[in-house]
């Protein structure tokens, strides 16, 4: 018996050891520090890129391409699904100067806070060789640049932007007696968001109950506020959302979609919203360029040839990102070069081609790969043309440090109460103001 027991124990030990070894074997081959010789006998530098969500740089093959061109560089990406979780972590890491990736992504709603409070911890990317200010949309460049009082450094290089169109269901439009051709659809509401509301009323009159015109009132609000130059802050950096007629105007306009019964009362980026795409619960949705892929995913093959995209009433922007390089990184210089390369027009064009993220470098709009781009799923819509037109019409928006908090509370408290709880627009507005005041008060 004892012999047998020893055998069993030994077998167990060997098993455990094998597991441990297997665990070790999973580590990347070039684990040995950055300056140690790797397989090809050259010094290797590992650069890390921290992003949120499906950022697309890796998926579009840009890292592979850069590594092929620069054999001394290896790129690793870490990703956190939601920006709400990603951004506070980025702030704490910047505060302590540790745990940072060599390159970090920043969402447009956070960029003002980053340039205002963290510029001294970030590399001035305007000075990096190969960065061409003239290649970028002026408003995008301005957003990534700190004010003169803060040193005027350009700490964020723009990646994509979110010029908006209106995505619509051709079959539902046809059933309601509305035009289905994208030029005619765009003409329905060209130049005025109120006409979009009128189109909704016309749709409802024909389509009857049960079929909504828009997915959510807050989606409309995001689109409308995105078309005004001044939103939540004035040029001096003062919070003015409460008194700014543009904000209140878009709130009330969007709220009328709810009160007129044109909204499917959904909350964006929730499972029910996704199901709404699949079930055709609504006929239109304001869609930034980056949302097209999302719609395709959620509406699935059954939605093919049903969706199309038309010009939005007014040029408007929603979302987009930047890349920043923390000074605390070990390879700040190499990282700056990579950031410059990743955001250069040629790469932005590739990102658009592969992932549909619309370039913030307007130098790309003349490239055939952008201007001639068509979206197969959306009835072959000329998305390059549609979104470039929108992008160039977007006003130079004043962004403030707490844009995200304000926008989020307006949408998720104020507009949602009107849309889903049936409160009056005035009640919804007051609830949002109360929540924002509480959030902004330190």
């Amino acid at each position, binding site marked *: 018996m004892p012999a047998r027991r020893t055998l069993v124990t030994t077998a167990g030990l060997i098993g455990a050891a094998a597991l441990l070894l297997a665990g070790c074997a999973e580590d990347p081959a070039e684990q040995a520090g950055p300056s140690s010789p790797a397989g090809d006998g050259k010094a290797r530098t590992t650069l890390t890129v921290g992003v949120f969500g499906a950022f697309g740089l890796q998926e579009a093959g840009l890292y592979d391409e850069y590594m092929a061109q620069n054999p001394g560089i290896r790129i690793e990406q870490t990703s956190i699904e939601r920006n709400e979780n990603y951004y506070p972590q980025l702030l704490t890491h910047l*505060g302590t100067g540790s745990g940072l990736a060599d390159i970090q992504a920043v969402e447009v709603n956070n960029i003002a806070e980053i340039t205002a409070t963290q510029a001294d911890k970030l590399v001035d990317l305007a000075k990096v060789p190969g960065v061409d200010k003239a290649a970028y949309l002026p408003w995008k460049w301005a957003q990534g640049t700190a004010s003169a009082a803060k040193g005027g450094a350009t700490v964020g290089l723009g990646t994509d932007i979110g010029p908006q169109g209106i995505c619509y269901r051709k079959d539902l439009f046809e059933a309601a007696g509305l035009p289905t051709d994208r030029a005619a659809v765009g003409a329905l509401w060209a130049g005025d968001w109120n006409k979009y509301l009128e189109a909704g009323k016309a749709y409802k009159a024909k389509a009857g109950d049960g079929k909504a015109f828009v997915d959510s009132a807050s989606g409309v609000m995001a689109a409308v506020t995105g078309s005004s130059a001044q939103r939540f802050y004035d040029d001096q950096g003062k919070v003015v959302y409460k008194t700014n007629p543009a904000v209140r105007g878009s709130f009330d306009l969007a709220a009328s979609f709810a009160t007129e019964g044109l909204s499917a009362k959904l909350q*964006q980026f929730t499972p029910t919203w996704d*199901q709404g795409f699949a079930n055709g619960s609504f006929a239109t949705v304001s869609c930034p360029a980056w949302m097209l892929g999302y719609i395709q995913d959620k509406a699935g093959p059954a939605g093919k040839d049903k969706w199309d995209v038309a010009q939005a009433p007014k040029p408007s922007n929603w979302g987009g990102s930047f890349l920043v390089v923390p000074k605390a990184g070990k390879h700040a210089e190499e990282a700056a070069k990579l950031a410059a390369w990743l955001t250069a027009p040629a790469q932005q064009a590739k990102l658009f081609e592969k992932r549909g993220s619309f370039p913030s470098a307007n130098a790309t709009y003349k490239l055939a790969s952008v201007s001639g781009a068509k979206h197969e799923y959306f009835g072959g819509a000329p998305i390059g043309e549609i979104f470039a037109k929108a992008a160039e019409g977007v006003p130079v928006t004043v962004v403030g440090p707490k844009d995200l908090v304000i926008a989020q509370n307006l949408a998720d408290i104020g507009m949602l109460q009107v849309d889903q709880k049936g409160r009056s627009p005035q009640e919804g507005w007051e609830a949002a103001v109360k*929540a924002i005041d509480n959030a902004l008060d330190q």
Partner: protein
Amino acid sequence: MWRSRRYRWDLRWSPYAFVAPFFLFFAAFGLFPLLYTGWAALHQVELTDPDSMTWVGLRNFTRLWDDEFFWNALRNTVTIGLLSTVPQLAIALGLAHLLNYKLRGSAFFRVAVLTPYATSVAAATLVFVLLFGRDHGMVNWALSVVGLDAVDWQNGTFASQLAVSTIVIWRWTGYNALIYLAAMQAVPGELYESAALDGASRWQQFIHVTVPSLRPTIFFTCVVSTIGATQLFGEPLLFNGGAGATGGSDHQFQTLGLYLYEQGWVNLHLGRASAIAWAMFLILLVIAGAARLLRGREASR
């Protein structure tokens, strides 16, 4: 001489060396954050620049008094706590009683009741969000089958709190049931035998033998559940898929934990968040004190 002295030292100090790691880790990861949070609560400090602190004394605490969002969160925490803890412990007690019978495959059932506890909050909550969906959810579908109206589970105040409580109940009932079961098996069998001889039915045995014997265990689970309910966070956070920490458009299921998270990690006010954390801690101390008083009085009766 020297050897014996070393032996004495060894005998005297070695135990301290053995327990030291725990206390060192506790000091680093338990005590220090606690004290630092208390210190931060007395300052105005933002997450964008955690190094610059401005002394504000007790202002972060006094303002909680007028903070309707804080009171709303406290109210929600209490209601959700009651809605989840009371049925949860009652069901757990019943389940434990059933498991305590001699049954075939008892090990299987014991593992089965524990599986929800082993599921991650995130996974469980996401499934529940789908079940409680307004338009295409299974719960509303079931309601429609029996001829009831669909309920907007996320937007109704009571409905949303009930839905969140359901997730908590589902996850923790089995865990409590196993604790009760362990305690039940320690109840001496003679008590049941003599009760049976006196003609007590199964139900009477449960009420007059099992429950009284389990009193310390029930007290323990109450304490643990209360602490858990006060800190409730993951379920309400994920139940609100779109917005995150607001706890619904009307803050209808924003718990204290969520409000703390919103102040600290969404609005980036570290000082205010710390004050809320300490307020929660103090609330728990008050509850614990009250429970002690209650028990003390009961014991002296």
